[in-house]
């Protein structure tokens, strides 16, 4: 059973992060077990050292329908490497001695259902995971069968919205009090290219004008400083996944992570 202290710590980690309104916030996603099975903690340690605000750890899945080619490939490789949930929770036992940044697990419903929703939630809290992102779990199913466990264990659930999500539905998401709202920047699977377009700006403005109480972070297709800077003017931060994974050098994880984060944090000359 989750203690009140654990639950408060989790909320605090997320709240503290979003309180810093003056800086561009960056979430980095990586696939657990990629490039090599035991790289999870190496990557966590490297991210802890860099200017990264939130960490998303991807649970590799055989059928990731909401992901583009990069994350499909890293997931396949991670599964071939032998990654599974037991292994991941084992690796994450030392998570909170490595970093105090908010950490979310991202996966698919079937990962959770097969593990057992309650057992999964319990493990998340034990290792210090703050919340979950399950892109194939719509709100309806969340309310029907997941919510009671997430709330019991104090885990935040992150819902996704898109440019086509109605205002009514966005208000409903906001009322769920998730860790943040995951704004999909365009109607596409992960890994597409970011272009500054009037439609996208209109989307950013529309969401900003709604004055939502839940922080918003925008993801899918953000890979450089210009995009990071732009979206932070409207939202509470950006999520970078595919571009980060593409830049990982298996022979020099720490160095390639340092270079990548520095690159996305620095305006090009």
């Amino acid at each position, binding site marked *: 059973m989750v203690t009140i202290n654990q639950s408060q710590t989790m909320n605090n980690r997320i709240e503290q992060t979003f309180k810093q309104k003056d800086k561009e916030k960056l979430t980095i996603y990586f696939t657990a077990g990629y490039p090599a099975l035991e790289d999870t903690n190496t990557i966590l340690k490297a991210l802890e050292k860099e200017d990264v605000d939130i960490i998303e750890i991807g649970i590799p899945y055989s059928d990731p329908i909401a992901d583009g080619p990069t994350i499909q490939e890293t997931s396949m490789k991670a599964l071939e490497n032998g990654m*599974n949930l037991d292994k991941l929770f084992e690796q994450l036992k030392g998570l909170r001695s490595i970093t105090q940044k908010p950490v979310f697990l991202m996966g698919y419903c079937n990962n959770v259902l*097969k*593990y057992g929703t309650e057992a999964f939630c319990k493990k998340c809290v034990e290792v210090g995971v703050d919340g979950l992102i399950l892109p194939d779990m*719509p709100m309806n199913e969340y309310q029907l069968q997941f919510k009671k466990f997430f709330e019991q264990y104090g885990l935040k659930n992150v819902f996704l919205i898109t440019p*086509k999500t109605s205002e009514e539905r966005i208000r409903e998401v906001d009322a769920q009090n998730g860790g943040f709202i995951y704004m999909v920047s365009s109607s596409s699977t992960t890994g597409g290219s970011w272009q500054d377009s009037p439609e996208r700006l209109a989307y950013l403005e529309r969401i900003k004008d709604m004055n939502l109480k839940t922080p918003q972070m925008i993801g899918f297709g953000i890979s450089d400083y210009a995009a990071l800077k732009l979206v932070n003017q409207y939202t509470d931060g950006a999520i970078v996944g595919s571009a980060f994974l593409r830049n990982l050098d298996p022979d020099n994880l720490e160095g390639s992570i340092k270079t990548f984060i520095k690159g996305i944090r620095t305006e090009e000359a």
Partner: protein
Amino acid sequence: MSKLDIKVDENGYYGEFGGAYIPELLHPNIEELRDQYLKIIEEPGFQEEFKSLLKDYVGRPTPLFLAKRLSAKYGAKIYLKREDLNHTGAHKINNAIGQALVAKKLGKRKIIAETGAGQHGVATATACALMGLECIVFMGEKDIDRQSPNVERMKILGAEVRPASSGSKTLKDATNEAMRHWINNPNDTHYIIGSVVGPHPYPDMVTRFQSVISEEIMQQLQEQEGKNSPDYVVACVGGGSNAAGAFYHYLNNEKVKLIAVEAAGHGIDSGETAATTAKGSSGVLHGSKTLLMQSDDGQVTEPYSISAGLDYPGIGPLHAFLYTSKRAQFEYVTDDEAMQASVELSKLEGIIPAVETGHALAALNNIKFKEGDIVVLNLSGRGDKDLQTYINYGNY
């Protein structure tokens, strides 16, 4: 006696199975379909157009044929519902025509579909050619190599065949790729799912389009037997669309025994099987909660069957419910048993069946019939596409 009431509920569930586990990106499409599909398909003008195409284009009603020599062998009165005589050679066209009409009503001009062996791909390409719709069929790279005649058929019909090179490069990956394409092209595209799988409302919508099969069986039995229900309905199950169609009007008539036949591949415990109900467990696959074959860690495992149409790691949520509620009896048939039964039907009745249907035929061996039992077996497809499989089997 408890009264059966098997139907999908407002959330898209049959008991604990079903629902719509979809990324938010697909929500507008699925919501539109969910809100519109019943209105569209129950509209008299739609029904008139659908029925007229089924009659004049597909060739319905398909005959209900009393197979006398087969009956003599198994000691029951066995009728074959001849879905193999449909245009394009299988029941798949019923759903493809229905959904293509729905797409037109929704104002969508582009169609995508997934296919394994190519039967649903050919049916969809056919419906699109007929209605002047653009068509892209996703097909696993491995299946493209294995099923080249159907690939060429789709191309002749004007469809683009797009290889799915992710994952295991077979049907489940073709389905993933089709869903991803839909996510990226939500506005003008309708996804014609080929079986009673996928997020709500697909399982119910496909079941309704295939239910013309049991609707005709009722009328034809009435004419031939003076009563509209048999003692048994037998059908093979991959995703389960032909079985759903053959069972539909009998779901709530408990006097009719429903026999669903899955592919055991090299044997249920061989590690090479597609017997989902025997080896699977509850989980989420392609947008619905159902029974699927998966590892202890919840990774979807690759199925195996000699028949590409049954080579799928899940079953539709309706069938998962029929299994757990024991409304249907599930049987498992190996590659060899299915091939023997396919050759047997060819010799006894002059009908070369699809190897999928061979599984349903082989299951006749597993049932103890009483004299006078009336059995309807859904002959879901013809064997032309499987000629190479017959040749490789060789034992005829």
